[in-house]
């Protein structure tokens, strides 16, 4: 009934998975715009593992549920489902719901990426500060010289300055006062 609704909505490129074997490879190869899953599908833990493992598997997910009210739908969206499709949904509503799923997923992914970038920038700055402090203490450099040394090492080895700083901090932790 759902597949029929999708086709009537003009979405012809629909693949139904009845068999779990090789689902990861097939999903990666199909690269779908949106994945629809039944909330109560008994194999969801395996699917979640696949989603957690592969960035390539990050796709908008819409969920079919067996019971609902408005609060439940809102809670689902807050919990990261891109859309929430209730059984008995009218066929003509399917397409807008899926489009909403895709839009929400993109907004969420962008937020995630920004957050990840902010986090790694913060960690990088911390490592650079630590490496500078080590160079200043152990090599008697002043701060500009310590930073210049880090930058030169990074350029010479074709690495990011944060990676060089990280290596210095790690090496110092392992080698101690040797």
């Amino acid at each position: 009934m759902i597949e029929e609704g999708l086709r009537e909505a003009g979405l012809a490129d629909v693949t139904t998975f009845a068999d779990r074997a090789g689902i990861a490879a097939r999903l990666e190869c199909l690269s779908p715009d949106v994945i629809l899953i039944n909330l109560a599908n008994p194999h969801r833990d395996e699917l979640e593992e696949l989603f957690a493992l592969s960035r390539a598997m990050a796709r908008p997910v819409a969920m079919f549920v067996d019971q609902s009210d408005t609060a439940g739908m809102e809670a689902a969206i807050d919990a990261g489902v891109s859309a929430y499709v209730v059984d008995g949904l009218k066929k003509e509503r399917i397409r807008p719901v899926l489009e909403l799923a895709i839009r929400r997923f993109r907004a969420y992914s962008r937020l995630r990426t920004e957050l990840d970038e902010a986090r790694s920038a913060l960690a990088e700055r911390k490592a650079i500060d630590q490496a500078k402090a080590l160079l200043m203490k152990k090599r008697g450099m002043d701060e500009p010289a310590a930073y210049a040394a880090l930058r030169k090492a990074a350029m010479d080895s074709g690495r990011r300055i944060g990676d060089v700083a990280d290596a210095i901090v790690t090496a110092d932790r392992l080698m101690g006062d040797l």
Partner: protein
Amino acid sequence: MTNTPYRIGFLPLVDAALPVLARELGFAEDEGIDLTLVRDLSWATVGDRLLYGHSDAAHMVAPLAIATTLGLGRPAASLSVPFVLGLNGNAITVRPELAARITTIGAPGDVTAIGGRLAKVAQEAAVCGKPLRFGVVHRYSSHNYMLRYWLNGCGIDPDADVEIVTVAPPFAADALADGTVDGICVGEPWNSVAVDRGVGAIVAVTSQIWLRGVEKVLAMRTERMEAEPDMTHRLIRALYRAGIAFVDPGRLDEIATILARPAYLDGSAALIRHAVSDRIIFAQNAPAIHVPEFMFQHREAANFPWQSQAAWLYAQMCSAGHLDYVEADYRAAQQVFRPDIYRAALRPLGVPLPGASSKLEGGINDALGVGTTQGRLILGADSFFDARSFDPEALESYIAQGRPD
């Protein structure tokens, strides 16, 4: 007065016993709760129903409550654990021909020696390009972390030397039978089902890996729990009384029969009875062996949510690469466990209440009296198989120590 309707989501496992018994033995009703149990087949569904408001609380693998609160792979949603539904109770079951190579089939053995033999087999299999594959019930499950802890401690790299995949409990025996996996770490009755079908033999129970390690918890949305303290307290008291019934030998048959019903585990009462009474059949046609410390649903304050248990799980999640250590997250993970709520709910019953909220995990080798705010409490050994201990205050040095050289 009409009873307050309340729904708890669960998976068909023996350690869902306390919510089931709270309903069926009338303890929920005594507290004015009209309790309904919502059965599902995967942890993802149980967790989603809790977040979507299809259920009010859930029987849940402890690390999933932490992962949900920290927002691993999805937006963070704060969950709280005011009550632990059980310690241990899982086992590692492998294909019989593999079991024959690593243990004396049909009886418990020394898990360090078994792990050492497994390491050799795993290496041979990896060299042949067919690494051993283990199934665990969820990425964020105590099963996964205890299996990884054991493999690591036996010189097997859980990421490089073997494969670990997810298999939901009801499909564990099938996965062994059709060769999808060589071994599984799952809760009861699913090990016993595999043994009964002759497709697996138990080689270790998880209490041999971490004695009194935290297993399933009662998870609630934090906001909801805090908004309805009275309701939460009544529920906890009903579950506590269900725990007293669970360990009453006189009620064993009654309990096994209730759990076996189609609405709950939908399985064999005889197999369920074995787990409830800690009498485990390790292999097909072997005699049942009493493993007194197989699972803890009540005694020694087993239901108390020690924040150090959450801390240990967080450490394992770091080691597994499931998250990066962030100090604020580490604190948040420990605060998922709410000993304050447990104490507030059970104080009126006059039961023993630990004074501390955290302990050195793996630090108790012999039974030990501990400080309480009321009652007397003796805690049994909580040792790890490798005799390490875990101090929640020293997480970074613990993780550094655990790294292979």
